[in-house]
């Protein structure tokens, strides 16, 4: 495959960036999207040009490190992570525009890399349960109904990649917040901190500069883990309950 790539280049957080055009040739359609970029970077390296910075880690769709805006879709046209997107999804001769996540709360560090520590700070505010450490508890000492265990598990699949923020017209992280709130709120261990968790996490979310949710649904359509919009309703419900409880 031969492709024309328009890639965002920005040397550092403070400099102005711009889209640069590259031609890549003889790309196998079995390559992953990131391997295609690796091939381009090998060439740039050999030509003495600065290679394109982009994030990746596990390359098997479970770590949440990779994430690119590909032709206007977070993680590209398929509902998967960028590393699991393959070049067979594209047509020979196609022009592909590649941009970093655009969010004030995710400043661009370099080229396609953004700083997503805003998510870490949201988690620090309550994305955990406090337990006394000690001997491991007996299995099934605390029964969890199947339906709740399933929902907690499904929402716990959120890998914090930031595609929800990147695709949201409001730049909101509500799907990420909702996934965490639902995951912990469904479990008995999560009840003690339920009110303070939602209030603190939402406060940090707002403080980081993420926008408010208008329930458009771009996030759920982009989420590689297929987290549904239900979790945002759950988030709103938990916040409303916290208001009622005076937090």
């Amino acid at each position: 495959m031969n492709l024309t790539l328009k890639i965002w280049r920005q040397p550092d957080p403070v400099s102005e960036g711009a889209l640069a055009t590259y031609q890549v040739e003889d790309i196998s359609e079995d390559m992953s999207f990131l391997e295609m970029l690796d091939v381009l970077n090998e060439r740039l390296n050999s030509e003495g040009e600065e290679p394109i910075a982009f994030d990746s880690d596990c390359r098997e769709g479970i770590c949440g490190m990779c994430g690119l805006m590909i032709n206007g879709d977070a993680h590209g046209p398929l509902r998967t992570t960028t590393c699991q997107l393959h070049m067979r999804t594209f047509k020979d001769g196609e022009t592909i525009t590649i941009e970093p996540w655009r969010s004030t709360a995710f400043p661009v560090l370099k080229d396609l890399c953004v700083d997503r520590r805003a998510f870490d700070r949201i988690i620090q505010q309550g994305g955990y349960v406090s337990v006394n450490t000690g001997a491991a508890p007996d299995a099934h000492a605390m029964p969890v109904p199947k339906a709740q265990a399933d929902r907690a598990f499904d929402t716990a699949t959120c890998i914090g990649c930031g595609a929800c923020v990147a695709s949201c017209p409001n730049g909101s992280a509500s799907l990420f917040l909702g996934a965490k709130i639902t995951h912990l709120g469904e479990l008995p261990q999560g009840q003690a901190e339920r009110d303070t968790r939602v209030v603190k996490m939402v406060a940090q979310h707002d403080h980081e500069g993420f926008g408010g949710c208008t329930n458009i649904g771009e996030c759920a359509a982009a989420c590689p883990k297929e987290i549904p919009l239900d979790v945002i309703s759950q988030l709103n419900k938990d916040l409303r309950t916290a208001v009622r409880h005076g937090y």
Partner: protein
Amino acid sequence: MRHAGTLTFVASQTELAKPLVEQVRSTRSTIALKIGMAASGLIFVLFVLLHMYGNLKAFGGEHAFNTYAHHLRTFGEPMLPYGGLLWIVRAVLIVSLVVHVATAATLWKRARRARRVRYAVKKNTGATWASLLMRWGGVTLLLFIIWHLLNFTIGKINVTGGPTDNPYRLLVDTFDTWWLTLIYLVAMAMLGAHLHHGVWSACQTLGLTSNARARRRAKAFGLVLALVITIGFSLVPIFTVFGVISY
């Protein structure tokens, strides 16, 4: 990574740009703003349903319509003064309007700040047309409401030069004017779009749609309500144009 050194240096420049927030309050969150918007919106929904019922009285002729208009003012007498209930309703509507517009403006501003750099290419895959029209559609509706109040309540403007103290004749004269009918029909289409997304979005914001079935039902409810209200309001102008409602 090959250029890990550069990235570490760049990352350290933005270290601790935003610390964890303290002294958080649930009522100061973006979600609290959304709850305010949803609650005021539902008041408007109840109001437009009653308003639509009143409008449809025009099919009953001049006497039925004008009697209804008169009864709106004498409703609750002698417990309430003349026009008392009307003023209570107006007060509720004015407070709702202030809440609805103020929260919308705040959230709109937040959303703009949340993405200062726009995408070169951005697709909307999960959004409905109505959901993307909420803000400018809302502005359109606000301008329409101002005109509508000047037309029928505050100013009582009769562009044909006819009577202004007879509600039925003012209505017929208004909708006999093609461009006024056009303004009203466009505004009702806008209202329909606003309700199509707004009703289900309010349900979601109030935390009533925390599973897939409830979400589908809320969306269906929003669509049905939007159609009922849009068609219900459009009947009177259309039937006036065709001479069914006349004097």
